[in-house]
């Protein structure tokens, strides 16, 4: 957001939801009109009473009672009908606005880059999508309607009061002034706590989520109580805020109750005095109090409606924080397409740094130059934290390069739509990221229309035939995040998923790390068939994985310092040997063991 949200008025803040509320406005207006009619009708009833008291009752004329009574009844029915209309009018649009906004938010969240999701706790997003939008719905179908109508009712009521007797009316109007002042002060106080409370609720949701996602760790260390302590202290914070909020509300309630009461008292004094002096009829006095009573609810409700309005404003602010979040990774204005994709992937002087990286640090990727020929398999080797996964994420624009470019078949990846780019390049991440859906849905994530034969083939290549033994075969739901599978099984499904997408370029981040030697060999043999025709970039930590590749690129200090065949690099690059070879210490160790053995034998002898 460019402007400081604190500076923006409540009204301006809320007005931003207008585009969503627009289709609903006609019905909301009708709802307001109905509510207004209901309110006026409610105000008219005392007028009829006045006529009745001053007329037939005064005269003791029983035959004249019927008409006024019928009028009171008729007006009463009309009021009920109008209330029904109000609810009926605003019901649909309120929920529509809510669900439209929710869908927009979801769409925006899916569109926002990974770097946004890195920063935002998921509970914060969730509380925006659920509680905040709920608040907005209520306000639209209830708050705003009543606020507008009640204010109008109060104004009309004042006119009625003035018309009954101007002195009493003036007392009423003057006495209500402190309310307006307090209402203004209330906003200042309340808005701050309202915001804090909604943020804290989001944090709490985050804590809950993490406690469930990380339950294995918490259980493994027996830290349930510890987690509870942290959670409880967050919950206590929220409680503190909520009570502060309640105190602010109590403050405005006090005034909203006190002022009308004092006014009533004064009016009673003035009214009786005037009546005694003959300046006021008994009927007028009755009507005055009846009218003032009708006005009590609108006046009292202002406090509640105001706090609701400020809550809504905060909710709207929070909603727009997400909607306004800048998105740098978007589709180009006029995208190119690759007519005949071959799968040539070229990195040209690629630079990348994470957004929070301190200025004095060098770029994490500091000028990567690398060419993958169509059909070639390139292994990326480098130390932990050298930026291999980051490099793979750049290919499908999960992050954008901060310098240089990545080209697929001669086209800068930023000139393609994201959908097209990601159709050409499929990834397997280092953690499997499965969804709690069926095996089939998980594997066919990238190509939902694939045939059963394609599915079977992908599973075969990833050596994932274990799925057929699962209770419901391909339709078995794999628990949340695939947690009802073994580590290696998850990894193979993620691999099958990438293969099933049938892309021109496969980007595999350490795809065999959780497999045993035998299975690994089998997967490799099967993968080779695919890799013969598909360009692939494979992050590798082990020599066995490197074996899949035609060439190896060594990532060191943010650059590709060597590219070549595995055996060549072993011979020519010290760093490569250091990263990939464990043979030396294997030999050393065996030597040591041999020595030990001899010693033991010596000791035995």
């Amino acid at each position, binding site marked *: 957001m460019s402007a400081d949200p604190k500076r923006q008025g409540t009204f301006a803040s809320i007005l931003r939801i207008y585009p969503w509320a627009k289709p609903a406005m006609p019905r909301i207006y009708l709802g307001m009109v109905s509510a207004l009619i209901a309110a006026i009708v409610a105000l008219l009833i005392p007028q009829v009473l006045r006529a009745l008291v001053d007329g037939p009752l005064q005269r003791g004329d029983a035959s004249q009672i019927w008409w006024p009574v019928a009028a009171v009844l008729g007006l009463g029915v009309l009021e009920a009908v109008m209330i029904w209309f109000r*609810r009926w009018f605003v019901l649909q649009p309120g929920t529509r606005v809510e669900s439209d906004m929710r869908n927009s938010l979801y769409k925006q969240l899916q569109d926002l880059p990974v770097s946004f999701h890195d920063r935002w706790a998921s509970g914060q997003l969730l509380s925006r999508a659920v509680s905040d939008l709920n608040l907005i719905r209520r306000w639209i179908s209830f708050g705003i309607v009543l606020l507008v109508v009640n204010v109008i009712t109060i104004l009309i009521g004042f006119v009625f009061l003035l018309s009954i007797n101007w002195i009493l009316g003036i007392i009423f109007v003057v006495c209500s002034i402190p309310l307006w002042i307090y209402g203004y002060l209330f906003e200042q106080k309340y808005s701050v706590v309202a915001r804090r409370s909604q943020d804290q609720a989001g944090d709490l949701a985050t804590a809950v989520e993490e406690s469930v996602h990380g339950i294995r760790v918490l259980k493994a260390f027996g830290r349930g109580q510890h987690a509870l302590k942290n959670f409880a202290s967050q919950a206590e914070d929220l409680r503190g805020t909520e009570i502060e909020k309640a105190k602010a509300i109590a403050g405005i309630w006090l005034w909203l109750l006190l002022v009308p009461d004092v006014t009533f008292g004064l009016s009673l004094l003035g009214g009786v005095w005037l009546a005694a002096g003959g300046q006021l009829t008994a009927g007028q006095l009755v009507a005055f109090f009846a009218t003032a009573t009708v006005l009590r609810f609108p006046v009292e409700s202002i406090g509640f409606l105001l706090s609701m309005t400020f809550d809504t404003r905060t909710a709207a602010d929070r909603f727009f924080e997400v909607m306004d979040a800048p998105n740098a990774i978007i589709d180009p204005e006029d995208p190119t397409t690759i007519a005949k994709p071959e799968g040539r992937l070229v990195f040209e002087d690629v630079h990348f740094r994470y957004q929070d990286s301190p200025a004095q640090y060098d770029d994490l990727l500091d000028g990567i130059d690398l060419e993958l020929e169509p059909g070639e398999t390139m292994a990326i080797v480098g130390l932990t934290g050298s930026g291999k996964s980051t490099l793979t994420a750049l290919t499908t624009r999960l992050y954008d390069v901060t310098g240089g470019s990545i080209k697929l078949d001669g086209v800068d990846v930023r000139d393609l739509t994201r959908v097209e780019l990601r159709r050409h390049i499929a990834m397997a991440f280092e953690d499997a990221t499965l969804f709690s859906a069926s095996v089939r849905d998980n594997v066919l994530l990238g190509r939902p229309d694939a045939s059963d034969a394609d599915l079977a083939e992908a599973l075969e290549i990833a050596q994932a035939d274990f799925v057929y033994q699962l209770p419901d075969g391909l339709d078995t739901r794999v628990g949340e995040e695939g947690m009802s599978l073994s580590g*290696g099984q998850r990894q193979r499904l993620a691999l099958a998923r990438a293969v099933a997408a049938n892309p021109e370029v496969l980007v595999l981040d350490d795809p065999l790390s959780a497999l045993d030697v035998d299975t690994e060999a089998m997967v490799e043999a099967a993968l080779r068939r695919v890799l013969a025709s598909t360009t692939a970039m494979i992050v590798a930590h082990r020599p066995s994985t490197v074996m899949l590749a035609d060439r190896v690129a060594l990532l060191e200090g943010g650059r590709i310092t060597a590219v070549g065949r595995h055996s060549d690099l072993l011979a020519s690059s010290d760093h490569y040997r250091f990263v990939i070879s464990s043979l030396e210490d294997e030999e050393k160790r065996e030597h040591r063991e041999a020595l030990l053995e001899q010693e033991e034998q010596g000791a035995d002898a």
Partner: protein
Amino acid sequence: MSVLGVEGEERDDFTRRESKQIRDRSLRLLNSLLRPLWARVTLTIVVVVVSTAAQVAGPALIAYGLDTGLPALIKQDWMPLAFAVFAYLFTGIVGAALIAWYTVLTARISQAILIDLRKRVFLHTQKLSLEFHESYTSGRIIARQTSDLDSIRELLDSGINQLVQGGLYMAFIAVALFSIDFWSGVVLFGSLVPLGFLLRWFQVRSQKAFRATRTTSARLIVHFVETMTGIRAVKAFRKEKRNETEFGGLVEDYRLANMRTIKLFGVLDPGLVLIGNVALGVVLLVGGLRVAGGGLAVGVLLAALLYTRSFFAPAQEMAMFYNSYQSAAAALEKISGVLEERPSVPDPTRPIDLWQAKGSVTFEGVEFAYTPDRVILPSFDLEFPAGQTIALVGSTGAGKSTLAKLISRFYDPSDGVVSLDGVDLRRLHPKDLRRAIVMVTQEAYLFSGSVGDNIALGKPEATIEEIVAAAKAVGAHEFIEGLPDGYDTDVNKRGGRVSAGQRQLISFARAFLADPVVLILDEATASLDIPSERLVQEGLLTLLADRTAIIIAHRLSTVAIADRVLVMEHGRIVEDGTPRDLIAGTGRFSKLHAAWRESLV
């Protein structure tokens, strides 16, 4: 089908008995939440009663002012009027102050209940076993803890007021009305009949409708959470459009469910107004005729009319209370369902303490199956003497992690006994169990928060020196120092701020800090580069010297530091011996080892 626990949570076709069973359980929960607060609740009720009395006095004082004060004033007697005015002011001020006080009181109660409920649900979900979590999903638990609690809060925030004040108001007014004019009271009573019918209709319909809102909102949250968790995969596999449709469908379901509840209230509310206004008309008719006939004072009629109108204002409040009560009750039903779930790995009722564990682990006739129809580990016996380092190898899906999860009691065996130093794990005190046995799981999960906090999870009271020492021991210190804020760097959600290997190092440091007698490493170095793995192994040599260790690894380099190797195949242990013997032999392991040696360069 039963409705015990969370079973049947998604259903909406409960029989009468089931429905009652669920309601009862949530009422029991509500009761247990309110019990510790009875003193405060009583105080609040008293405050509401007094303030209501003050408010009820209002119309009576006005009537007094008009009927007694006015004639008296005409005779130049100010006293009755002054009394009326002062009494009115007094009751007004007292009433307003009490209501303000009440607002704070009730917030305290409502927050106390919420925090109690939050903690209970949190602790309980922590106690529930993995089995439960795998199928229930985090999204539902989040739904319970957020949107369900929201609707309970709504009830609590205004509930006591609406209920007590509404009820009292109506009672007071009814009494007052009867006492000033009997016939008006009768009319009022008559109006209760249609009111009763209306409420009953509402109750039946809304119960079902509100249940639907709870399930649809939970589904929406589940989908939302899963999308956000797997956002990378969603993007990489272009699931956005399909997700939008799916989510849109869920949003629409939720909208419709919500709309049904609002619609019901949209009938109840004007229904009440209608009944109220008709009653008013009748009171007017009945009273007016008598006034005209001279049988009733105008002031009395006015008061009767004011009372009748004020009788139905709180009735509307009561309706609102009832509405939010139904909504909260539906939420409470779901929450009480979660709380009713019994953990399948329960804490022992009479736990055995084991202050100083030695670290020998035995399996006796253990058999294990996640689901009854598919046995993962067929019956076996096994013994790990204290201090031994065991390498557990075998093909993927063989059941290695499962075996490890039995030792750390993530699951209980379907049959047989797993014991530590001869004590059945099921009877061992959880604190001793967790202190003695620690497992580094295959998935290195980090919590958002600093690196230091994540390591400290192994030992919450650890000093920063201890944390640094642990990091050094596993070779993580160097990269941590390189992070922008060192040990205070926030690792972001799920540790997304650090690389996969770095995550593993941090989890490893965590276990190192915990310093257990039995340490289980499940593929703890799979994502590390070879130099780091080497460092870790050197660290392990000293770390594991005096403890029992079970190391699961596909990279057989770890076997080097093991005293004993177990080879698993399809849930069975097919080879068991020292590395040297097995390598020298002709079994599976020697082949595996040869193949692995082959792959080294």
